[in-house]
């Protein structure tokens, strides 16, 4: 009774319902159920970024394992064509209840603009899966796609993107995603037809490395187009005009003579590790050779 009188005096009747959501939400209420998710995701993203800046192979393999296990099977945090539909419709999850998802989406956009398809190269669970297959499977199984075919095939993903976007704009049927991307596999729910298609795709991937990512993925195509904006690009030496070493090493078909094709490059570090290798990269070999000449020749008369 006293409480009622007090609240009337204050001009605000006490809420007789007592629902918990009536109280104004504080940041502690909002973060409480999310902080574990946020922390684990942030830790994973930091690991992926460190493995990228260090150009470290072991760290990259750890990133792959976590991408498949945590980002894929545990959380299904994958950028999907449905996220591109969301951008078109401007349909987003409620920000304050989905901070981890926004961190993930924001990291993908920002990292793509800063470095290129970093997402494809180490965050995407499916990409991590096929790249791990590539490490595990014997090299003699590989079928190298001839360059002219590879170049044309890499355009298919842009066609897939255009067709799917067109279909979505006309029908607003979002479930088309099930037939153009295999990311639902991490949710472990699919119809028989979907699993059969996935089986065929994975079987082909055993022989053609990263088949889906290179040739078919509409999300990769979108990030590839965004990569034209890349701020920090891979350095090239003048020797790259003639040397084909990196071009032959690149498993993504992203190097053409002196040029790096930003739409194809996923920042896997294979070529950058070669550039840094003073024993292999002609750039360093030439510098070493010339410095030896300079040192050795003038010194001879003194000896």
């Amino acid at each position, binding site marked *: 009774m006293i409480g009622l009188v007090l609240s009337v005096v204050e001009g605000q009747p006490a809420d*007789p*319902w007592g*629902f*918990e*959501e009536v109280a104004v939400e504080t940041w502690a209420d909002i973060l409480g159920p999310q902080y574990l998710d946020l922390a684990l995701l942030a830790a994973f993203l930091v690991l992926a970024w460190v493995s990228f800046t260090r150009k470290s192979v072991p760290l990259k393999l750890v990133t792959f394992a976590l991408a498949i296990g945590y980002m894929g099977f*545990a*959380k*299904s945090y994958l950028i*999907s064509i*449905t996220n591109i*539909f*969301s*951008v*078109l*419709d*401007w*349909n*987003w*999850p*409620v920000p304050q*209840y*989905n901070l981890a*998802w926004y961190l993930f989406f924001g990291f993908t956009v920002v990292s793509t603009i800063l470095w290129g398809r970093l997402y494809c190269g180490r965050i995407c669970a499916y990409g991590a899966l096929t790249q791990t297959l590539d490490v595990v499977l014997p090299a003699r199984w590989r079928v190298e796609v001839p360059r002219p075919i590879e170049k044309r095939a890499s355009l298919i993903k842009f066609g897939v993107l255009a067709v799917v*976007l067109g279909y*979505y*704009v*006309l029908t*607003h049927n*979002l*479930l088309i*995603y099930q037939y153009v991307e295999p990311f*639902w596999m*991490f*949710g*472990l*729910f699919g119809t028989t037809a979907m699993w059969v298609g996935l089986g065929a795709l994975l079987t082909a991937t055993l022989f053609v490395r990263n088949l889906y990512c290179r040739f078919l993925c509409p999300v990769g195509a979108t990030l590839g*187009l*965004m990569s*034209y*904006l890349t701020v920090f690009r891979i350095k090239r030496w003048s020797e790259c005009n003639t040397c084909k070493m990196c071009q032959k090493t690149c498993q993504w078909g992203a190097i053409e003579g002196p040029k790096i094709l930003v739409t194809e490059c996923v920042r896997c570090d294979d070529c950058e590790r070669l550039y840094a290798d003073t024993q292999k990269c002609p750039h360093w070999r030439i510098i070493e050779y010339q410095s030896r000449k300079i040192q050795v020749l003038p010194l001879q008369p003194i000896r």
Partner: protein
Amino acid sequence: MKRFGVLILMLSTAGLVTLAAQSRRIFTNPRPEPHFKALFPNAAGFSALGGTPLHYKVYGEDPKANPGAPPIGFIFWTTDLVPNERAYHGPIHFLVGMDMRGIIQGVVVDYNSEPYGYFSVDPPQFVAQFKNKSIRDPFRVGGDIQAVSRASITINGAARALRDASRTMAKTFLSPDQVQ
């Protein structure tokens, strides 16, 4: 300079596609009446959509025969009650039936565009857990509402929409002592 050109081209293409996508907005089903009998099997009649917030009144006696009869419950769209609530891809269109004691009589998923809807809100087990639920229940995912791993944004958005819409209806049309 070339990069600037690419940016302009990409932005204008995205703008055009976005405009095209906007032209086909999804609206709430204007004829939900076929669902009403499932929510209130014993009802004799229903009012038209009206009131603030928008709802249908449910009558135990035919309102034409007895215009003074009080309603036995309400049917409402979550999209009318909490229009800003969203799941993974926009609002889920739930039709909710609630009686005068604040007990949910049933929930119908009329439309959703959730990519993972087919294993989260589409299976009948999802709506079944809201039948006979009091609006005083916590509606906590992982507690009284079953969590679905890998579809948590969908399930959380759905639970918030159902909880907040039903409680808003109760606060407007019921009194606290009616609700157990």
